[in-house]
């Protein structure tokens, strides 16, 4: 079976799952939601068919599992968002349409050779920095939940950090490909531009008060540096730097201090700074092994529309899913993330040139780390930071960025598989 037929088959399965998901929400909440909910499944299936056919044309040999997994995750997300608030699901649906549009555009534009990006690496680096600084600028930036991450333009809110992440990965892949030998020799001179860009990025992150993104960027950076140079000492040095830096931030920033204190003993702060996380754990625990079932979870006081957990459909959507789908569903979700990551690294292994390998490593690590940081924060493995759960959380910028990431991996995969076929 060809790669694309396999993809189509997988998409059918995902389409059926989506239909089942919306159907169960509909059955559970008939009084609340309309039969329109059932058309959601058909609509998304149609949308992914479009993506599939573009992929058939643009990247015929790309990995056949990535798109269905992304489709599955967005479907799970939009089903849960729909269950929590149908209006939000409609907005999220629009964002997914835009995201698939961007995905299609990315595939079409870069289908001949995405490696042209390498020649613009410094442009990407500067672009990333610009995007990161944007929310910190007075006037256009807004603070949400203690972190300055947002840019507001009229009714639109946008998180430029999501795109900055991708731009930085392109820059790093290009830069590290070019300099990897000399950097591996450890001459300070060659590390210079790298450190400058990274120093800048970290400063911006401290300024914007967003530790989660800091951890994400630094982790991706270390992963790429390690793969490029094969020098484990760099990873160690980086980790030490990060810990020292974090300790510094802990001292300066009350926001970060609260987060760490809550991480160490959430229940002590159950009524204050730990409220969210403690309520999120109650939600997870209430799901138990089998979950309450879609539509049967408890998220509000009877008759109230305010959820017991703030930011339930963005940062805490995992807590909602874990309650309704139970341990089986939550673990299944994590397994999908794991499979996605495994496919990503496989693409990196199969890619033939350094830039492609590094780009695939960067994109995959970013995806993996982001999933780890948000879910790990909720289940208490690391301090909580509010970032989105890839493909699942409510939020436009995140969905668009993740579809671009998906397009990137598929482009790399297509090239690698095509070359393998030829040789």
């Amino acid at each position, binding site marked *: 079976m060809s790669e694309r037929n396999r993809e189509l088959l997988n998409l059918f399965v995902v389409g059926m799952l989506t239909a089942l998901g919306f159907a169960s929400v509909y059955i*559970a*909440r*008939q*009084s*609340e*939601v309309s039969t329109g909910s059932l058309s959601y499944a058909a609509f998304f299936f149609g949308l992914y068919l479009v993506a599939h056919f573009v992929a058939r044309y643009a990247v015929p040999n790309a990995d056949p599992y990535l798109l269905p997994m992304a489709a599955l995750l967005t479907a799970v997300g939009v089903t849960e968002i729909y269950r929590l608030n149908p209006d939000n699901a409609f907005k999220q649906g629009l964002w997914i349409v835009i995201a698939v549009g961007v995905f299609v555009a990315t595939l079409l534009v870069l289908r001949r050779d995405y490696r042209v990006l390498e020649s613009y690496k410094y442009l990407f680096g500067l672009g990333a920095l610009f995007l990161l600084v944007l929310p910190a600028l007075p006037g256009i930036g807004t603070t949400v939940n203690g972190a300055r991450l947002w840019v507001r333009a009229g009714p639109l809110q946008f998180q430029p950090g999501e795109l900055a992440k991708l731009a930085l990965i392109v820059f790093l892949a290009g830069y590290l490909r070019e300099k990897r030998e000399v950097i591996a020799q450890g001459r300070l001179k060659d590390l210079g531009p790298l450190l400058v860009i990274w120093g800048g990025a970290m400063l911006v992150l401290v300024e914007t008060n967003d530790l989660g993104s800091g951890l994400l960027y630094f982790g991706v950076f270390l992963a790429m540096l*390690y*793969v490029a140079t*094969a020098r484990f000492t760099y990873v160690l040095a980086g980790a030490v730097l990060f810990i020292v830096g974090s300790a510094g931030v802990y001292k300066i920033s009350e926001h970060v201090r609260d987060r760490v204190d809550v991480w160490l003993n959430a*229940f002590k702060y*159950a009524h204050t700074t730990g409220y969210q996380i*403690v*309520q999120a*754990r*109650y*939600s*997870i*625990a*209430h*799901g*138990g*092994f*089998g979950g309450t*079932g879609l*539509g*049967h979870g*408890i998220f*509000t*006081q*009877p*008759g109230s*529309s305010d959820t*017991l957990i703030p930011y339930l459909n963005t940062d805490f959507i995992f807590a909602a899913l*874990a309650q309704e789908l139970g*341990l089986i569903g*939550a*673990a299944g979700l*994590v*397994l999908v*993330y*794991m499979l996605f*990551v*495994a496919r990503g*690294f496989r693409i*990196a*292994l199969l890619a033939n040139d*350094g830039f492609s*390998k*590094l780009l695939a*490593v960067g994109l*995959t*690590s970013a995806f*993996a780390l982001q*999933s*780890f940081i948000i*879910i*790990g924060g909720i*289940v*208490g*493995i690391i301090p909580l930071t509010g970032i989105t759960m890839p493909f699942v959380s409510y939020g436009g910028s995140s969905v668009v960025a993740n579809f671009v990431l998906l397009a990137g991996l598929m482009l790399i995969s297509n090239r690698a598989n095509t070359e393998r076929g030829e040789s």
Partner: protein
Amino acid sequence: MNRQITRLAVCTIVLLSALIVGTTYWQTFAVAGLADRQDNALASVAQFTVDRGKIYTGHRRVLLATNVKKKVAGQTYYFRKYPNGYLAPHVVGYSTQSRSRAGLERSQNDYLTGANGDISSVTKHELDKLTGVTIKGNDIDLALNVRAQETAVRQLRGKCGAAVVIQPQTGRILALASSPTYNPNAVEKSFSAITRIRTAACPFAAPLLNRATQGLYPPGSTFKVVTASAALDSGAFTPSSTFYDPGYCEEYGKRVSNAGNPESPETFGTVTLAQGLQHSINSVFCNVGKRIGAGKILDYAERFGFYKSPDVELPADAQSPSGLYRKHKPYKPKHPEFQVDPGRLAFGQERLLVTPLQMAMVASTVANGGVLMQPHLIDDVRAPDGSIVHRVRPHKVRRVISATTANQLTQMMESVVTGGTATNLQIPGVRLAGKTGTAETNVNGKYDTWFIAFAPAEKPEVAVAVALENQTGFGATTAGPIAKSLVEAILRQRSNT
């Protein structure tokens, strides 16, 4: 680069696996602990999706707590309604969203929500959850006797105090009422109105307080029954032991007077121990206390259940132990022989504080031939299909005094009614045994008054204790008539059936 990529991939997958471990922890091991936490808003909402068990009394004939089904935002909730809310709010309590729970609704929450731990109900619970079937709780049937409970509520109305009725042979609590009372149906929506309840009868109305199990009052002369138990059971005295009463008793070189005006107290001359109880003569008991010592009296008090929670099915923090108190805490002296004034202790002063339930247990023990039965409110718990989940059987706590002592005490307490301090309480055709109590309070001329009793003396079927706050009369004229009508309420039903 491939070696590094492989290593990185392995590390990343391990990292992500940790998420599954973390989730598993919260969804399996941590579940029980989290669900019990008071601040778990979700669990408390979730409990309203359970078709909570009903609470009945009188062999499922009278409904005390039931549910009103309401559909809100697609979810079915079961809210509590108390059809006979006036009857036993201090026993049943309430289960609300805004004020959480109280009474049996709190202490028996696991039974009522079907979350009691036996394996078959747990399995059924999980299956119901998976299949989306509404979970049904277990029904509780109480031992409360409706006629007696109604009498208690009616008779206490407008007063401050409590009444407890116990079946001596079984420990079943046939009535338990506290006044001022409140309407449990109003807790959810107009709680502030309950907190504003005031009454002229007592300085602090506190309608939510269960005075029967939490109200601590000086026992006054009712404690003489405990002292007499110690005196007779230890063999130090017999009912016919004689005393000379000059109207006072000398302790530590000071006079402790009998009841009445301290300048000219009642004097009885030469009397027996039995007459001492009959006429409630302080000097007699003062001398008894000096002879047998405070330690002995406290030992017997402890055997009657003092210094321990009575352990009825109500929440633990809604039951106070009785005993000597110091700084609002039970105080058990290590060396009672010189830490406690034995004379005052013997007739119920010192720093003694007791609950009406404890004094009912004292009366009930004497009535039951000296054996204390565990008092209990619940008869049985039934699953929705009617099968018995839990049945409360009579449980003997201990033999407190010998049958002989109990017999002698019964005769002495009978004489209180036939020719002592409570002659106004005689019931034609029924041999009533009782003991009055009138305890001074901080306010001059105001007393906490008591009557404890049981009947019929030859074969007791009912034991009662009534305590009233802030009274100007004596125990026999204030608490006594209430106790009498409670005894009658029980005995009349027996003759009817």
